[in-house]
Every structure is written in structure tokens, then in C-alpha cells.
């Protein structure tokens, strides 16, 4: 789990109140200034002062996530991250916890498809102690065997606990089914793959990937940048430089035709479903236009999708759609849930609104609303030091720059009904897609066969997600 991020800051908002002519409004969203330093050992440091609340936020990205794991070691990146605080050269896991909690600090480490994020937050007055803890975990973790065994056992049970809640695991099945043999199929691992992980593999993953040239560290909050820079150079300058590993993530192949996976959860009274295909990369040239269109289609409460499935029909408590942007193309999905009896009408309706989107495109009002909504809701996303630190580091990781925010309004403004139409045609699935359903198979199984020419079924109690483990 990562630390909780919030916060941000937007500079200069003159007279937004009166200047209602939104399209012609001058640029108002702006990232606060920050400094980038690359140390001799290759570590990239990003520093951003943000005053007002006496908190300092650290957020580091190590450029190796689940996609960098050996194929038979799914979950290795997450386990390595989880062990960073579980014993270092100078602290036991318990000492680390005692020192961290005493100053009320938080620490988080977890892996994603493309990277491992390590974060910490503490009061400005505790910056020396906080920095010592953070660098200790990142640089000097030593993976005691007993802690490795403990975390692996907990993680296996963690997967089982998650399976007691369909909405906690639907995207583990979805990613597996959509990506097949591609590394994005297996973020986090499962009950079986986690059992295969050995301490030696953890150590190797750490030693190969946790090197300065493979790491970006952002620090944001209330501090003096010049002073903090010295402290950071002291703490991280001696981290021995090593060549960066090369992680090659092949472009995933979108699914052709229609395939359906039904995961049987016999006690379910509600069916949870995800529908979609491979989406886009984090630096896709159309990413802003795609975001605008998806906001209108399934990104807000009054979106096309939620209006149809919730507001007008009452089939569900919620329906949405999203593109998860990654280094290689991440997933796109429509997601909702409905009682077993209305599974088919709800999925039919989701498909109908998707088809209507292709046929009719967006209306001028829908496009305009999406633009205003993104702009209006953006400032609270960069309100806290934690939000800012993670944002600048992830931007740097994906090779994006400050214009991602500083030119956001312009880029949003450039989206037209015509370009939206092209985006829909090119980027939203129509004839090719996967369906993943978790529900009571005995009740919904026969009826949902109509959605796909190829069907698969698993029981939720069977270990693993997808593909089924080889015997």
C-alpha cells in the first residue's frame, strides 16, 4: 500500500470568477516550480518547495515493476517492495516500525506494472529522522529469511481474502484474460506464484533494479530546497552507481473477436463485469483527447454510461470506464455490477451505449462539460505535497514534462467534436473485446454465452486468476 497522497497547488488563478468565457481564458493551471538534479551516481532528484503545512513528502520510483519480474515469479516486485522496511543493515523490522511510528510518519512501498513506488511522509521538524528511515529502507534493506517467509505467507492469504470480495479481484482476472502471456497479465501474483518465490530471487531483483541510475526521487513540502539538497546528497551520494537494467516490455496485442471469462462465485447475488480491450500508453500523442472523451463517456457521475446504467435504469450503484496508461499500452475497461437477474439487460445496455458512442459521437454539450469538469476538478489533484511529489516523479518516469499540467487547458481546448469522433473510432473498442464476469454461474451462465464466440469458466475458489495454473 502506498502512503496516502493528497494536496497540491495551483498558482495564479486571477479572476476565474468573472472570466467565464472558458475557452478563451488564459492559462491558469500551473505546476509550482521545481528543481531537477542528477547526482554523480545517476540518481535523479526532484525538489519542490510547498509551504503552508509543515509536512515533507518523499516519493521515489524505481523503474522496475511487475513487468520486470521473471515470468514464473509473479508477485516478486511487490514482495521486494513490501520487504524494504522489514529489516535493514541497522534496523530490524520492529525497530524500523518503532522509529517510524514514533514520529507519526507514514511509509509505503508497492509495485505497479512499470515501476515500484516507495514513499514516506513526516513533519518538517522530523526531516532528518524521516530521511534516515526512508534512505535506510531504499538503500540498505537486507531481507531477513524469516521476514521473507512471513510476508509471502501473508500475501498468499491476502489474495484469498481479496477473493471474498468480487470487486477486489475482478481486475486481476480481467488483466490476466486480456493480456494472456504479456507481462501486464500478472500484476501482484497469485496464491500459487507467490509460493514459488525464494529469498534469492528477491535479493537478485533488488540488487539488479534498486540502483541509483534506475531511480527517481521527488521531495515536496515545507523545506528550504538548498538545505535539503545537501542532506539528500549526503544520504544518497554514496549509493554505489551501477548500470541500469534494461526492461523490455513488448507492445501487447489487442484481442481479436470476442472472448468471455465467467468466474463462478456461488454465493454472489450480484454480477460484477468488466468489458474492454488493450488501451493506450502513458505518452500516447492522443492521451488528452482520449481523457476528454472518456470523461464524457464513463468518467463522471453524469457520464453517458452512468446515466444509462444507474440514473435512468437503476441497474447499478455505479458504472464507469477508464484507460489505465502505462509504459506499454495499459487496459481500457467498462466496469459495473448489477443483481444476478439483471445481468443481461445491464450488459446489453453497456454495449448499446458504447455502440451509440461510435454511431453518434459526443454532443457539443457533452464535450464542453467534459472539458470544464477536467479543468474544474484538477486543482485539488495537486493540492498536497504528497500529490505533487508523486505527480512530478511519475511524469519524469514516463518522459513527460511540466506541460502535461501547464498546457493542459490548451490541450483540452484543442479537442473538437470532429477529433473526438476520430478518437472514438480509433481508441474505443467496438467489435473486438473481452468480457470478464464474476457472479453466480448457475444462474447467469447460460444467458451470457451470447456475448462471445469463445468462452472460459473458472471457480473463484480455484487458486490463481487467469490463465489457470498448469497441472
Amino acid at each position, binding site marked *: 500500500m502506498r502512503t496516502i497522497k493528497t494536496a497540491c497547488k495551483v498558482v495564479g488563478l486571477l479572476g476565474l470568477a468573472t472570466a467565464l468565457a472558458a475557452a478563451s481564458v488564459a492559462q491558469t493551471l500551473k505546476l509550482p516550480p521545481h528543481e531537477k538534479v542528477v547526482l554523480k551516481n545517476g540518481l535523479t532528484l526532484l525538489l519542490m518547495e510547498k509551504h503552508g*503545512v509543515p509536512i515533507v513528502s518523499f516519493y521515489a520510483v524505481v523503474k522496475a515493476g511487475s513487468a520486470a519480474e521473471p515470468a514464473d515469479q509473479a508477485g516478486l516486485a511487490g514482495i521486494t517492495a513490501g520487504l524494504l522496511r522489514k529489516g535493514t543493515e541497522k534496523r530490524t523490522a520492529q525497530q524500523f516500525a518503532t522509529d*517510524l*511510528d514514533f514520529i*507519526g510518519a507514514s511509509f509505503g512501498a508497492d509495485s505497479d506494472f512499470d515501476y515500484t513506488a516507495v514513499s514516506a511522509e513526516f*513533519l518538517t521538524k522530523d526531516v532528518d529522522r524521516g530521511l534516515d528511515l526512508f534512505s535506510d529502507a531504499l538503500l540498505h534493506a537486507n531481507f531477513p529469511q524469516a521476514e521473507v517467509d512471513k510476508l509471502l505467507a501473508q500475501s498468499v492469504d491476502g489474495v484469498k481474502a481479496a477473493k471474498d470480495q468480487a470487486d477486489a479481484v475482478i481486475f486481476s482476472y480481467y488483466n490476466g484474460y486480456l493480456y494472456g502471456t504479456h507481462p501486464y497479465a500478472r500484476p501482484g501474483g497469485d496464491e500459487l506464484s507467490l509460493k514459488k518465490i525464494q529469498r534469492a530471487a528477491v535479493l537478485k531483483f533488488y540488487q539488479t533494479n534498486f540502483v541509483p541510475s534506475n531511480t527517481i526521487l521527488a521531495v515536496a513540502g515545507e523545506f528550504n530546497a538548498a538545505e535539503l539538497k545537501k542532506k539528500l546528497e549526503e544520504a544518497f551520494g554514496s549509493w554505489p552507481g551501477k548500470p541500469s537494467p534494461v526492461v523490455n516490455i513488448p507492445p501487447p496485442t489487442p484481442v481479436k473477436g470476442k472472448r468471455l471469462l465467467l468466474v463462478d462465485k456461488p454465493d454472489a447475488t450480484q454480477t460484477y463485469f468488466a468489458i474492454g480491450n488493450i488501451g493506450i500508453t502513458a505518452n500516447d500523442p492522443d492521451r488528452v483527447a482520449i481523457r476528454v472523451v472518456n470523461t464524457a463517456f464513463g468518467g463522471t457521475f*453524469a457520464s453517458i454510461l452512468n446515466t444509462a446504467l444507474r440514473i435512468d435504469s437503476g441497474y447499478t*450503484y455505479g458504472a464507469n470506464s477508464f484507460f489505465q496508461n502505462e509504459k506499454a499500452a495499459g487496459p481500457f475497461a467498462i466496469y459495473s455490477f448489477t443483481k444476478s437477474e439483471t445481468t443481461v439487460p445491464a450488459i446489453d445496455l453497456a454495449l448499446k451505449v458504447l455502440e451509440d458512442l461510435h454511431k453518434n459521437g459526443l454532443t457539443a454539450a457533452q464535450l464542453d462539460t467534459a472539458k*470544464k469538469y477536467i479543468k474544474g476538478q484538477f*486543482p*485539488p489533484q495537486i493540492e498536497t505535497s504528497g500529490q505533487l511529489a508523486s505527480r512530478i516523479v511519475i511524469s519524469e518516469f514516463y518522459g513527460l514534462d511540466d506541460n502535461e499540467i501547464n498546457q493542459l487547458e490548451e490541450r483540452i481546448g484543442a479537442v473538437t467534436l470532429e477529433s473526438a469522433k476520430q478518437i472514438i473510432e480509433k481508441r474505443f473498442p467496438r467489435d473486438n473485446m473481452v468480457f470478464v464476469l464474476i457472479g453466480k454461474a448457475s444462474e447467469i451462465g447460460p444467458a451470457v454465452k451470447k456475448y462471445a464466440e469463445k468462452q472460459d469458466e473458472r471457480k473463484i475458489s480455484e487458486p490463481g486468476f487467469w490463465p489457470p495454473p498448469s497441472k
Partner: protein
Amino acid sequence: MRKISQWFLVAGLVCTFGFVVSARAQEEAKQFPVASKTLKNGMKVLVQSDHSIPNVALYIFYRIGSRNEHPGTTGLSHFFEHMMFNGAKKYGPGELDKVMEANGGENNAYTTQNTTVYQDWFPRSALPLIFDIEADRIQYLQFDPKKIASEREVVASERRLRTDNDNGGLLDEQLWATAFVAHPYQWPVVGWMSDIEHWTMEDLKHHFEMGYSPNNATMVVVGDVTSEEIFQLCEKYIEPIPTHAPPPPVTTVEPDQLGERRLVVRKPAELPLLEIGYHVPQTNNPDFYALNVLQTVLVHGESSRMYQRLVDKDQIALNVGMGADTAFDPTLLVVNAQPKQSVDPVSCEKAIYEELDKAKTTLISDQELEKAKNIRLVQFYQQMRTISGRANTIGTYEVFFGDYTRLFDAAKNYSAVTKEDVQRVAKKYFGANNRTVATLIPDNEEKANQ
């Protein structure tokens, strides 16, 4: 997902922890100055200006929740919260969300046992619009039978999501239903499914009239505004709304529990679950602070006693937690644990009792006490650093402690907590007779037969 009525709990929010000197309290108060005004119709308005982002968080707290309901109409407050988005006079069905989003805003709401809270987040340019919308729906809510029928289904789906298909939600519902035999905290905020299916138009109208009077509400506005402009907008839009009688007081008092209660839920599941509820006083009771310190020592972070014991040393649980909702009436402090596979929940229970007994028989250490106070200070800043966090915190203190300035007394109150206080509350509230123990036992045979 939105309009996610978080009917389960707002806990945690007020659980900020102790700290040192009262100079710090004054500093905190100075750092977040609040302007206050009570309108002629009785609604109190609190404003905190912060121009660091061009946005505004506007929260309205109504003092009505599931404790104001009765058997047969449980879940009505929460259902009502949903209806408040379904059309009034000027902004008809579906228009509220459309107009708000078209102006860069969004909204949500949550219902608890005690309150119903409406939240708007928007760029400052939408300020007059938001007041227009809020005034419209408080006064002129529509009761369209078609809309009610469809919203019933939405709420049923929400209940399936959070309770019927969520083992933790299901067990928690049973725990409260068992721990309370008289007081309305015994029924779920979302309502029993059969009540969701059966309440009538008359029930709804009555509930609206009862709960939604301006003198039963507090408005908190934080962000890129001045108090003058907010008070002016209030005079124009909110002050003309007539006042009527607030909900009748809840007079039922839960009798003392005189012996342990136990319940079991058997259903298909991968893992068992454990919850233990102890009766504790309402939020504004002076023991609040010592109980929070104890709770921090027992479950906050991986250095906490129960984490060390159950998760780290004995390795019988995946996690262990503890929390109480903010509440007007005496409530439950719930300890929960996720036992590992094949671990009998009874062994988790035993370890939890042993840790509680230690807190009763010996004083916590100086270091633990100081840790709890340090944690409270960090949590204070974490919840006060966003405009929405501040709106919620200020409103929660105003509503549950009777005065928002108590937020700034918290530092003083926590610094006054002694090790002896912590021991005293451990002895007072964590007795065997005062607890209700709920376990979920996986019953996968049953599943095969279904």
C-alpha cells in the same frame, strides 16, 4: 465511484491524537481561522478562506441519520440522501449533476447513524450556482414515483456491494444488530433489504419534513472565498428558507450489557473474520481522548501492540484494527481482525484479550504515550491540508463536539491524557461482560449443496 454514500463510517476523522502544549493549540487555531455566522432561520455557517487553489469545498451537515428511523423504515435517511440528487423545482431530475459538471463542479454525500452530509467541490466561478442548487433542493425536492422506484434499485445494488456480497460488511451488520437491543444503532444505515423494498412515499415526505430544516443543519465552506461573500450568498439563497421543528430527540437509551454476546455467520468464504464490539460513550464524552490514545498504542502502525502480537509474532492474522464512529449517543468501539487461513478466530480473540488485559494491569510506557501524541499532530495536519479535509473536520467538530473551536482544543486535551487515564479507560470499557463477539466461519460445504 461517486455518490458513494459512505454509510458505513466516518471514523478516523476525529481520531486525531494528542500533543504537547497549549501554545501549539493556539498556533493551530491561528493557522486556520474560521468565520462564523448563524442565519436568521437557525443555520450556522462556518467559513475558512484559503486561496492556494481556485476551488471551494462546501459541506452541509444535517443532524439526521439512521438513529432517527424506526423498524420498517430503516435506511430511509440514506435513501433520502440519494433522492436529494434526483430533482427539485428549478433543477429537475438529472439536472443537478449535469449543471454542476458543466460548471466544473462535482458532488457527493454520505449518511451515517447520526448525520447526512452533502459535499460540493467546485471552482470558485460556480459559487452562485451551487447556492442556487442547494437552496432549490432543500426547499423544493420532488417526489416522482418513477424516480423513487429506480433509486430503490440503485440503493439495493449498493447494499449488495457493501453488505450482502462483502463478508466484512455482512458481519459488521450482525455485530451491531446483536450489541444493541434497544437503541436505533442496532439497524444498518443502508437499511434492511425488505425495508428498502417497502418504504412508502408518505414515509419519505415525513422524513424530509423532519430532517431538513435549516436549524438542523450546519454549512461549512472552505477555499477560495471570503467570509463576506459567503454570508451574502447565504442571506440571498439560504436565509429565506423557513424553519420548522427538527427531528424529535432520540430518547431510547441502550441498557447496560450484562454479559458477553456471541454470534456466528456461516457462509461460503475463503477466510474467516472476527469482530469484537465494546460499548463506549458518545464522541463528546471526556474519555474520548484517552480512548484514542489507547487505540493508537494498540493498533496504529506496525509498532503497535496488537500488530506486533497477532500479525508479526504469532502470525495468526493478516491485519488487526480498531475504531469507533463519531456518534451522538453511546456507541461501539470495534476491534477487527482478519485471521489467516485455517486459523481458528478464537486464537485471535484470545491474543486480543491478552493485549487488552496488559493495558488494564500495567501502565503504557512514556514512549508509547509520546508516540500517540506525535501521531495525533501529524494527523491533524494531514486532515487540515486539503480544503475538503478541512471542511469535513471543522463540520465534524461543530456537529459532534458542539463547537468547531473544540478542534483546536484537541491538542490541549490530548496533552492532558496521562498513562493512568489510559489504564482507567482500558479497565472501564474492555470487560468481558461489555463485549459482543462476531465471527464469520467459512462454510464451503453449504456452497456445494446450493
